[in-house]
């Protein structure tokens, strides 16, 4: 196909009289809703539920799909997002009817297979992180952060004082301060030192009784391992404070080092990053939280337990922070994650982390002649470049948009905030070398274009389904639903 077809909106394809799904014939007498509901019967039929045949529906969404980029096309180097390959066997097993059609409130005696699966995953996550206990209830990374901070708060409160302040480095994801805020903590930003790590002396000076905890992403969003992490844990603990580790970048560490062994108290794990479950165009994810034994009594209820060889949900958890999700967590995501862990095994997971770091360092060394590093120190699974030295007045955004023309999804841009015009690249372990080489060649070509014809780069993309979109107009005059 040369150019993608311009697909209209569903509402412009409405074709009254067409049917896209079969409602089974009813075997009971039809009730008149008016006699039951009176004036609570729906008056107007929804205008924007289109009438289409199954063919129309399938073509519509298939055409839409052609406007998207995806991991199955090629390198998707979004830093801190860990866009690794999504194994196909995971999709198959998650669709087994014995998982997909389970009702969340079925008696435990009828769901032993699902509960065994969840228990196995909890144990695996504890083994990988060096933690003692785990909940699978949180639905995404930020949801896990909120849960973890709530655990800290409940624990400190039980010790007599919930405290007031959450310390968060300036390189952190925005979800960290937001999660702390919604747990009732005041957020205090701590500046990264010149090496991109936490400044130990400044941290020591800040140790007062009002500090509840620190939230650290390790390795951080610059890809740098927090070399003093064990000491940081000791400093915080000596102050009666807790240490939260944001596990967004766990893909660098599996089988190599474990947050539990550093002294961290609690962390979340993004199954849709490290454990290969698909990102789905923005979820669903899963954000299990693993913690040390002293936080275990506070885990969201119910907690999975085993009695006389049978699994059951223990609801009698008086210290629990309460539920964070309506039911049992994003179970079908958990199925995929366990399938991945059992596929890889202990050695495979370690190998994955090693190769993720190898790939990132390979891209770093190949891109260094073309771009300036944000920070100079050694990096693990991702690398951050800055916009310094980009020729022809070309910005990070221009470079990113021009990469689209070369058939690549751009890296994460303008994050972390502490690097000017940041370009954050994470290839993951599932990228073949030649794909990374192709990306490096594209960057080299764009840098050359920027010298010779910057205006062309600044107008990119030229070959995508859409050229640059007017985000200013969208925000000034929001049109959030279809208006005929």
């Amino acid at each position, binding site marked *: 196909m040369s150019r993608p077809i311009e697909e209209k909106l569903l509402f412009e394809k409405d074709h009254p009289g067409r049917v896209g799904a079969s409602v089974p014939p009813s075997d009971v007498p039809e009730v008149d809703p008016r006699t039951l509901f009176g004036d609570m019967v729906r008056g107007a039929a929804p205008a924007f539920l289109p009438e289409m045949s199954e063919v129309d529906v399938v073509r519509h969404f298939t055409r839409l799909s052609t406007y998207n980029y995806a991991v199955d096309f090629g390198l998707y180097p979004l830093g801190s997002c860990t866009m690794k390959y999504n194994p196909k066997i995971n999709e198959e097993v998650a669709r087994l009817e014995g998982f997909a059609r389970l009702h969340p409130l079925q008696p435990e005696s009828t769901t032993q297979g699902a509960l065994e699966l969840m228990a196995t995953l909890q144990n695996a996550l504890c083994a990988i992180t060096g933690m003692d206990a785990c909940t699978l209830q949180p639905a995404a990374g930020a949801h896990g952060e909120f849960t973890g901070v709530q655990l800290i708060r409940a624990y400190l409160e039980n010790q007599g004082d919930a405290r007031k302040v959450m310390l968060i480095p300036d390189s952190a994801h925005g979800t960290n301060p937001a999660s702390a805020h919604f747990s009732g903590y005041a957020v205090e930003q701590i500046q990264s030192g010149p090496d991109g790590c936490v400044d130990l002396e400044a941290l020591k000076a800040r140790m007062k009784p009002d500090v509840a905890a620190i939230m650290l992403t390790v390795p951080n969003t610059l890809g740098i391992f927090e070399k003093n992490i064990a000491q940081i844990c000791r400093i915080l603990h000596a102050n009666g404070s807790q240490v939260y580790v944001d596990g967004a970048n766990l893909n660098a560490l599996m089988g190599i080092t474990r947050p539990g062994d550093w002294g961290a108290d609690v962390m979340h794990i993004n199954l849709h990053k490290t454990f290969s479950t698909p990102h789905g165009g923005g979820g669903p994810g899963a954000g299990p939280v693993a913690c040390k034994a002293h936080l275990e009594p506070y885990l969201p209820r119910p907690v999975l337990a085993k009695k006389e060889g049978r699994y059951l949900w223990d609801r009698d958890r008086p210290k629990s922070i309460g539920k964070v999700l309506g039911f049992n967590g994003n179970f079908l995501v958990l199925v995929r994650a366990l399938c991945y862990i059992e596929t890889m095994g202990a050695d495979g997971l370690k190998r994955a982390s090693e190769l993720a770091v190898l790939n990132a360092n390979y891209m770093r060394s190949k891109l260094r002649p073309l771009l300036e590093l944000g920070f100079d120190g050694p990096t693990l699974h991702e690398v951050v470049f800055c916009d310094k030295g980009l020729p022809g007045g070309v910005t990070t955004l221009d470079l990113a948009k021009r990469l689209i023309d070369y058939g690549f999804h751009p890296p994460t841009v303008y994050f972390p905030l502490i690097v000017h015009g940041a370009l954050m690249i994470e290839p993951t372990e599932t990228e073949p070398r030649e794909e990374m080489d192709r990306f490096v060649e594209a960057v080299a070509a764009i840098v050359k274009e920027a010298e010779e014809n910057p205006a062309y780069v600044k107008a990119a993309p030229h070959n995508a389904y859409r050229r640059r979109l007017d985000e200013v107009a969208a925000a*000034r005059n929001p049109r959030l639903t279809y208006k005929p």
Partner: protein
Amino acid sequence: MNIPSDLKYTKSHEWIRVEGNVGTAGITDFAQQELGDIVFVEAPAQGSAVAAGAPMGSVESVKAVSEINAPASGTVSAVNADLTDHPELLNADPYGKGWILKITFANTGELSGLMDAAAYAAYVAESAH
């Protein structure tokens, strides 16, 4: 960059035009340039009290939010309703049609703490380095 000589300025890049007991305030040409295309302005409601130096609203571009601090203490006596549908006025005419609100002063003595145009020009030149 435009820095009218008849206005007073704050370090957080607001301006105020003093006319007797009432001041008209907005953000400076420098501030609108730094933010880029402004897409939304959040101003305090008419009749609310504002305190000098404290946040009283915000201006947003597509990817950033910047607080507006009150240049003086007092009561909001008028708000520029045109900005709701035309936030771009802040970019096009920051000292004219892009005014944000009028404040009836609680204490005109406070105004002596603000910068004049020359001082503000020097301040901007310095903070650009």
